[in-house]
């Protein structure tokens, strides 16, 4: 029933909570949750992070868990994953706090993976291309690094195009900064030459 429900919405990711509500009409709640969990673990269903569409009638202030029949990309990504990467995805899929779905502090992710027996070598870089990446939040003491499942809205072509455009603009901005540094260096160079000349004159 889970799979046929998702198949009827083949073009859309369906919020997990909507799927649970639908399944609960026919089965006990706990059974439905367990079935979803098993289907995700067996890669029959993909669990992804996305803002809910208006049609589902649930708050769209934050991204929430969505389910879908795995796409070719999902299957390819799952196939290529190293054991430590698969474990990281599983751990991130267990993070469901409101506003922080699929996100975990890097330090906690590292500890969770270490407790599963992965060693320092495995844990050096917690990043999976197109699947899990990093971001930082600020505190009064400094930055906190997080690992997250890349949300679906960050994978769209529009997002890529917009980001690429902005990357190029950012480089233009850096040029202003760089010209200032170069000017400062020219001035430092001139000052240095003047000092060298003065020292030479003094010696004479």
């Amino acid at each position, binding site marked *: 029933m889970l799979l046929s429900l998702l198949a009827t919405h083949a*073009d*859309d990711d369906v919020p997990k909570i909507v799927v649970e509500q639908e399944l609960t009409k026919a089965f006990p709640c706990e059974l439905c949750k367990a079935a979803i969990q098993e289907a995700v673990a067996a890669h029959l269903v993909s669990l992804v992070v*996305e*803002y*809910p*569409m*208006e049609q589902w009638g649930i708050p*769209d*202030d*934050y991204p929430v868990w969505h389910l879908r029949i795995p796409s070719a990309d999902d299957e390819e990504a799952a196939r290529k994953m190293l054991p430590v990467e698969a474990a990281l995805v599983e751990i991130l899929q267990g993070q469901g706090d409101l*506003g922080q779905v699929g996100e975990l502090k890097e330090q906690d992710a590292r500890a969770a993976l270490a407790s599963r027996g992965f060693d320092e070598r495995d844990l*050096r*870089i917690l*990043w999976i*291309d197109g699947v899990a*990446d*990093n*971001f*930082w*939040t*600020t*505190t*009064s003491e*400094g*930055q906190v*690094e*997080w690992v997250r499942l890349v949300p*679906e*809205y960050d994978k*769209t*072509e*529009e*997002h890529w195009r*917009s*980001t690429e*455009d*902005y*990357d190029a*603009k*950012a*480089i*233009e*901005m*850096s*040029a*202003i*900064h*760089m*010209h200032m*540094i*170069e000017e400062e*260096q020219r001035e*430092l*160079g001139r000052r*240095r030459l003047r000092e060298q000349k003065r020292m030479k004159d003094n010696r004479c």
Partner: protein
Amino acid sequence: MDCKESSYDCAAIDGSTGRLPRYMAFRISRFHVLHIGERAYLYRDGITQVPTLNDDEVVLVENQGEPLPAGDGYGPGKRLCLSVRRLYQLTKSEDSLISNVAEKLVMSVKSNPNRLLHDEIQEILRPLGIQMIMEPRQLIYYTSSGMVMVEWRGETRTMNDTIRWALIAPPNHPRILTEVTDFLKEHPKKVNRIRSEIEMEGLKLASAPEDH
């Protein structure tokens, strides 16, 4: 806090199939020097710490960076750009010489966050209830001086943060203001709710950008 054309920008982002709710993010880019390069000697006097990468890390940026086209006063290929995503990909390289250096460079980037951006997020945006996350995005290598710069970028965390920013500090730039105004018009309920929240918190709203 105003949106300056050269420092701040925002981008409209649509879902590829039109099925995602339209959303928008304010972005801030900040740059700093990660490796001072050949002119380090100029800074010897009076400056105790000069930002420096190991030679192998610099060579990695030089070898793996994409040449940038001519512009901003630089000739073609005079600047090389290595995206941080590409750098992370290199950490997974089968060539252990490359992956080891890439890992070291990732650590160097991570341990050098942009302090100005941090302060802008922590001291300006946070007290206004605006959440912004930050990440390193690009490394730029200057062939003439061997200098490496890093870009750290901030992005509003959710649509609500973008709306809050737009209501408290709408951008000055006419194009960006138009984009922001159109975006707000698409979400009247959210905008009204967030406007009430801002008022209840005793924060000052800018004159309504939707009215511009």
